[in-house]
């Protein structure tokens, strides 16, 4: 019964579809070439001695050391034997010995590598230590060491190369096995009392088998090369036998008179080595993840709709940012995807604007596009994109100093957003040195001063530390400090608190708020959390499917939100009245995929107010007298149903 359970677990552990994955090897050009080359090599190894042994050993004293001719395509050696025939015949011995050495490598590597599974942790740890010492030495040195012990000659060289490869193979086995050992079916087998040897054979090895075969194939390639090396040095195959290495060594002595004698076996060695290698790599790639990167060039169609000018190009001296009809598009399988489709808004000095929406709504891309941080292959287009009155469109490096001094960004994850190999102070100082032209010392002083401004205690000492010595909240404050190195007019904060502990979140938000107030900076806060936005912002932009669907004062969120999506967002936020034991509410349905936006209103499939018009005609973003904007055909309709109909799901 236990065994059944184990088999069942195993069968669901992802060993399905192996056949087809192996077949995909042949489908890639490299894979197909490798399969053909390896096949040809093996066929040659079998048939060459049968066909050409006579020519290879027939001495012809009339034709010693001749160059290539009609009779001898690669010429003859010092006894007048045909070199091409010798190279072809040597295929068998070269391949045979390489495979034999590989077999020794695999068997001894498996034994060493699985000792831990068979005899317990302690034995495993000891062998791991031994293996660690051994793998530090290059294979050729180990091979020389063993060649001394086993003696010069074919047998000694096979043993030497096999054993020299064993430690690294054993290490591989250990790594793979320890990965499988913790999987459910092995643990289950263990609990069921299956003995260790059986576990190894039945459950562990079959699951690492593919990886081992791939590596053994690559190992065979290097064994072939090593063997040629040893024979070349005169430590491997001894006359009258001959393999490629020995032919190469002999050819080298006469290379000035007769280069082909050296080049022909050299080419054979390289081709055979490559055949094994490429085959192994091709299989490895087929078994692993395959990624295809599209080669489509982005040709973004010009917007058909007239750009939305409603928000008015108010030529306000106070305007920090003016964005009109911003679009971001990517090349994708089968065309172009446009996850941001025509976003327009403006920001004044000292204003805090929040952008909310589910993940995938295009809010982060909007922020990156405004910051000119979108890289190819993605493309940004806009009717207007002005920062402090300067047109940023066309990007490039023209506005580097303007943006460097007056435009700051704070990213979501402070853990990864700082360079781990630079001191925190240096990362801040860099901005002032680059854009402010400050000396190293002045820049460092300013960095310390800014760290102090973002409430980092003991800033002088902290400036000398690396990011990993900071806590998450402190790092995020340092990031904000980095944005204060210049004289920011706009801070764009993309989910600045999402990666932080709840206790730290409010501190970071307060800091941003304080900076905004004291320095009269505009703050664009991107968040998926409507309660964060409501707390800090003056105005809220609600984004859905790459468009702004509502733009309203934060104070109106609760009382006067008009778009059904905004109202749904508010409805699902747990408040004081939500019982703690109640499951989290979510908006039913799923956000549309950027690859296939519906024809009409993108929210229609999830909207309780959706009508036939909604499904065919996209609602325009209309501005009302108070400057609020909404894109909905039924914006004024009441929805009592929302809170109740919000499907309640367990998290």
């Amino acid at each position, binding site marked *: 019964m236990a065994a059944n359970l184990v088999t069942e677990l195993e069968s669901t552990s992802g060993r399905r579809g192996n056949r087809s994955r192996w077949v995909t090897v042949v489908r890639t050009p490299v894979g197909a070439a490798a399969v053909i080359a390896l096949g040809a090599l093996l066929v040659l190894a079998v048939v060459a001695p049968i066909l050409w042994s006579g020519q290879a050993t027939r001495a012809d004293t009339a034709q010693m050391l001749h160059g290539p001719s009609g009779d001898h395509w690669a010429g003859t050696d010092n006894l007048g034997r045909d070199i091409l025939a010798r190279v072809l015949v040597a295929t068998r011995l070269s391949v045979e010995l390489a495979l034999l050495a590989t077999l020794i490598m695999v068997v001894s590597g498996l034994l060493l590598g699985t000792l831990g599974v068979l005899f317990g942790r302690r034995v495993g740890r000891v062998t791991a230590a031994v293996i660690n010492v051994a793998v530090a030495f290059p294979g050729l040195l180990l091979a020389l060491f063993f060649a001394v012990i086993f003696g010069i000659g074919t047998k000694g060289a096979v043993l030497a190369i096999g054993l020299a490869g064993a430690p690294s193979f054993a290490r591989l086995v250990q790594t793979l096995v320890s990965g499988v050992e913790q999987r459910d079916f092995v643990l289950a087998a263990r609990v069921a009392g299956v003995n260790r040897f059986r576990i190894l054979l039945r459950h562990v090895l079959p699951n690492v088998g593919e990886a081992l075969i791939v590596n053994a194939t690559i190992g065979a390639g290097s064994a072939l090369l090593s063997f040629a090396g040893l024979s070349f040095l005169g430590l491997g195959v001894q006359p009258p036998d001959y393999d490629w290495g020995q032919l190469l060594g002999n050819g080298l002595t006469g290379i000035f008179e007769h280069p082909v004698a050296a080049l022909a076996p050299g080419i054979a060695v*390289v081709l055979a080595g490559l055949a094994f290698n490429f085959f192994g790599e091709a299989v490895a790639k087929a078994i692993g993840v395959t990624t295809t990167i599209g080669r489509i060039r982005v040709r973004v169609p010009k917007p058909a709709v007239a750009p939305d000018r409603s928000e008015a190009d108010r030529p306000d001296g106070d305007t920090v940012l003016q964005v009109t009809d911003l679009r971001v598009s990517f090349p994708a399988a089968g065309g172009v995807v446009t996850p941001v489709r025509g976003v327009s808004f403006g920001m004044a000095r000292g204003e805090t604007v929040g952008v909310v929406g589910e993940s995938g709504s295009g809010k982060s891309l909007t922020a990156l596009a405004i910051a000119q941080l979108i890289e190819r292959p993605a493309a940004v287009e806009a009717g207007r994109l002005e920062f402090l009155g300067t047109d940023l469109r066309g990007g490039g490096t023209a506005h580097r100093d303007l943006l460097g001094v007056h435009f700051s960004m704070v990213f979501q994850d402070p853990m990864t957003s700082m360079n781990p190999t630079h001191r925190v102070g240096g990362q801040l100082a860099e901005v002032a040195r680059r854009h402010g032209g400050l000396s190293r010392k002045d820049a460092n002083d300013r960095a310390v001063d800014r760290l102090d401004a973002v409430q980092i205690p003991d800033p002088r000492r902290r400036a000398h530390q690396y990011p990993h010595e900071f806590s998450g909240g402190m790092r995020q404050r340092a990031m904000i400090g980095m944005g204060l190195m210049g004289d920011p007019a706009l801070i764009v904060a993309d989910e600045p608190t999402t990666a932080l502990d709840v206790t730290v979140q409010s501190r970071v938000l307060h800091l941003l708020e304080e900076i905004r107030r004291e320095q009269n900076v505009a703050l664009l806060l991107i968040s998926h959390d409507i309660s964060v936005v409501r707390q800090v912002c003056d105005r809220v932009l609600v984004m859905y499917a790459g468009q702004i669907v509502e733009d309203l004062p934060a104070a109106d969120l609760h009382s006067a939100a008009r778009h059904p999506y905004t109202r749904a967002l508010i409805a699902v936020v747990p408040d004081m009245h939500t019982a703690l034991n109640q499951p989290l509410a979510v908006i039913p349905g799923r956000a549309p995929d950027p690859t296939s936006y519906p024809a009409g209103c993108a929210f229609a499939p999830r909207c309780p107010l959706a009508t036939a018009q909604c499904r065919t005609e996209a609602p325009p973003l209309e501005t009302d007298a108070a400057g609020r904007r909404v894109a909905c055909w039924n914006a004024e309709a009441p929805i009592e149903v929302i809170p109740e109909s919000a499907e309640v799901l367990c998290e």
Partner: protein
Amino acid sequence: MTTTSSAEPAPSLAAGVWDNHWVRFAVRRTGQLLISLWALVTASFLMIHLVPGDPVRASLGLTAPQSLVAARREALGLNDPLLVQYWHYLQDLATGDFGISMSSQLPVSQVISQRLPATLALAVSAFVLALLIAIPLGALMGVVTRGGRAQRTELSFTTVSVVVGAIPDFVVCVILVWIFGVNLHMFPVAGKSGLDSYVLPVVALAVGPGLVLARILRVEMLAVLQADYIRTARAKRLPAVAIYLKHALPNALTATLTLSGLLLSGLIAGTVLVENVFAWPGLGSTIVSSIQGKDYPVVQAIVLVYGVFVLLINLAVDVALALLDPRSTIREN
């Protein structure tokens, strides 16, 4: 780890913590070195005892008189109990005494000191050349092909570097000799004379590892260029050169460095083959002739010297890694 923002500065305490993980790193790494060294010395000692039959008889040949064999055995101390021999071996090594060559009767230490400089000169120049190939090429390729750009360049770079990198040293030697020695008569192909005699052996040693390293560095660069802190650097509006060289390259190098250590030890091994092709008067040609002549004390000593170099290289890599990326000293705990 000091993650709390404690009010009292106590710089001495902080410095203590900072020192501490360096101290622990040093202690751990030294311990590792000593264990490997011990394993190496023991393996080298055992080598002569693992040879089947009588190593002295094997070395002197079947025709040598029994009395000579017995005398030589006595002189080498092979008749003592194994542990006593081991103890003597360790003592001798400690005083720099590697024994006497069986064939030339010269002290082995003298052979080594004559031969080592040539090998070191070869290996060091090859390593420097490999880095000079790898770092600019790998970094450039990483930048050029980032985010799926320049796919054709990427494909040809990968193909060329895989194929050339897969050609074993001694075949590269043969090809170089053929092109530059036989056909062009540009460089000498045997012996160590002037600077030009370095060209072919150094290039033969450096090309493969240089290309392999360049490929690895490219992949590392691609990964690093995706990192959030590169986006931060771009958000700071740094010039492209500063982003690539100051922010991306050091992070890509930390990962590449470990592998360059492996390549350098591989390069030391590669000198054995290359020296034999170019009749380079180094340890490599000596060890091969000594293996063929069964001159075991010389072989033992050269294996030891190679091994020590490999261990020192690994140590140097770990130290360099620690300096470049201080986290690596803690990571292992």
